[in-house]
């Protein structure tokens, strides 16, 4: 099966993801660490330990999410270049992505309350916090099935 067209499409997705991720990191995490209060003082100067931990977790989960995305995209591109549609070892990255998303979305949805209001009792859990990981894990299972079928097809002489 000719996969050159799909490889080029994946490459375009990869380049777009890299650019948007770097921009997002700079914009979002930069803003989070440099939020200025009404008094003109950077909020981070008055952070309590748990707020520092929350902001650090938000940043770490965001970066981890991007790293897993890149690993998955690179493995996919390598597979497509070798003429394989699905790579068995890539499925676990979808599961890891789903789990990371759970924590990232929780932090993302509550970072405003945490760093500006310090309102621990106003934590919210959005639908996407649970929904996206469920979808990611479901797709990981389907991907693994597809990888098994692709392997059988490849070993059908």
């Amino acid at each position, binding site marked *: 099966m000719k996969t050159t067209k799909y490889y080029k499409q994946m490459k375009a997705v990869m380049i777009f993801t890299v650019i948007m991720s770097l921009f997002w990191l700079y914009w979002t995490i930069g803003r989070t660490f440099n939020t200025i209060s009404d008094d003109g003082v950077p909020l981070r100067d008055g952070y309590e330990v748990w707020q520092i931990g929350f902001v650090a977790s938000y940043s770490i989960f965001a970066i981890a999410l991007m790293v897993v995305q890149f690993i998955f995209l690179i493995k996919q591109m390598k597979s497509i270049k070798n003429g394989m549609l699905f790579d068995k070892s890539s499925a676990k990255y979808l599961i890891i992505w789903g789990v990371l998303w759970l924590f990232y979305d929780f932090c993302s949805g509550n970072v405003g309350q945490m760093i500006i209001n310090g309102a621990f009792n106003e934590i919210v859990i959005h639908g996407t916090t649970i929904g996206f990981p469920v979808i990611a894990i479901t797709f990981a299972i389907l991907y693994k099935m597809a990888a098994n079928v692709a*392997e*059988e097809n490849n*070993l*059908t*002489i």
Partner: protein
Amino acid sequence: MAKRKMSLGELSEKVGLTLANLSILKTGKAKAVRFSTLDAICKVLDCQPGDILEYRED
């Protein structure tokens, strides 16, 4: 192959399979074989499918 004094490379050329695929068949790593492939191999080696296939329990 030995009886027909044929190498793997020669067989792959005559059957129309790559050396890699024929090697997969020979080493038993194939998951399935197409009837067309079996037909081509038997034609070239002038044998029956039973001569080149053996059942083994997993």
